[in-house]
């Protein structure tokens, strides 16, 4: 009798724990879906135009950028 009661108790506990875990998974998925939906609805609208600030580029960086620009211009003019 005691064994039967213990077995039923264990079975009931396992079912309860499994249900809790499933509910937690569902809650988490719902939360993620909701947040992703909110994130998706944020439209990046700031119209910040690229502009060179006063700081000059280092010589080696400027040389690479000039070379890259020239190669693109050559390609365009060909």
């Amino acid at each position, binding site marked *: 009798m005691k064994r039967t009661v213990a077995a039923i108790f264990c079975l009931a506990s396992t079912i309860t724990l499994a249900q809790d875990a499933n509910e937690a998974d569902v809650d988490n998925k719902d939360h*993620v879906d909701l*947040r*992703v939906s909110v*994130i*998706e*609805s*944020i*439209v*990046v*609208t*700031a*119209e*910040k*135009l*690229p*502009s*060179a*600030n006063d*700081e000059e*580029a*280092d010589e*080696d*960086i400027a040389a*690479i*950028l000039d*070379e*890259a*620009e020239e*190669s*693109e211009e*050559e*390609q*365009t003019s060909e």
Partner: protein
Amino acid sequence: VPNSRLALALSLLLPIAATAGYRFDTPETYLAEAEALPAWGATLARHLEERFVIQSCLAAEEHCDGRLKGLRIVLEKGENLAPDKQLRLVNRYVNKRRYRKDRRQMSLSVAQGGQAKLRNHWTTLLDFLYKGGDCEDYATAKYFLLRELGFAAEDMRIVVSYDHSVREHHAVLAVRQDDDSSWLLEIDNTIRKSRQSNYRFIYAINENGIWDHVQ
């Protein structure tokens, strides 16, 4: 009265939140894998396909056309620079590209209720080099270029924030430093190292995931 006290407390706290620098060491803000944001997941997949074109150009100059010639020079010569110079090079190279508002490009998707919604459009590196883009496209192009130069995905995130100075959402690339603080690569060639900023960080993405900063 309690409501007015709460509003006062929030108004005092918000500027503090807005001036803190972006941090990478916040695992509790991780939300989901990158593909959970379909538009971003699709851009990552398209970029993966386009990498064959970039790799082919890097392997042989005759395979490069148009903008790819410039890209090849930046990647080849940039490879030998120190990491901080690589950041400056990529920042300046990308910021020279054509600015184009993407309002017309934004995907109009129909949600389950039949309601049409505007969503951000994320461009690939090649799309951006040929067609230009706006602030999130500049940040994305910097991300993909630095990945080509060997920067790790886990050290970079495209961060969408609310910019208090223009009262709109803006995107920048954040690059992690050794102390888990970050440098922000701005669209005006500045690399913001200070912890002070006008930004309230909303969310961040890279190829590994999405981080939600307003949970």
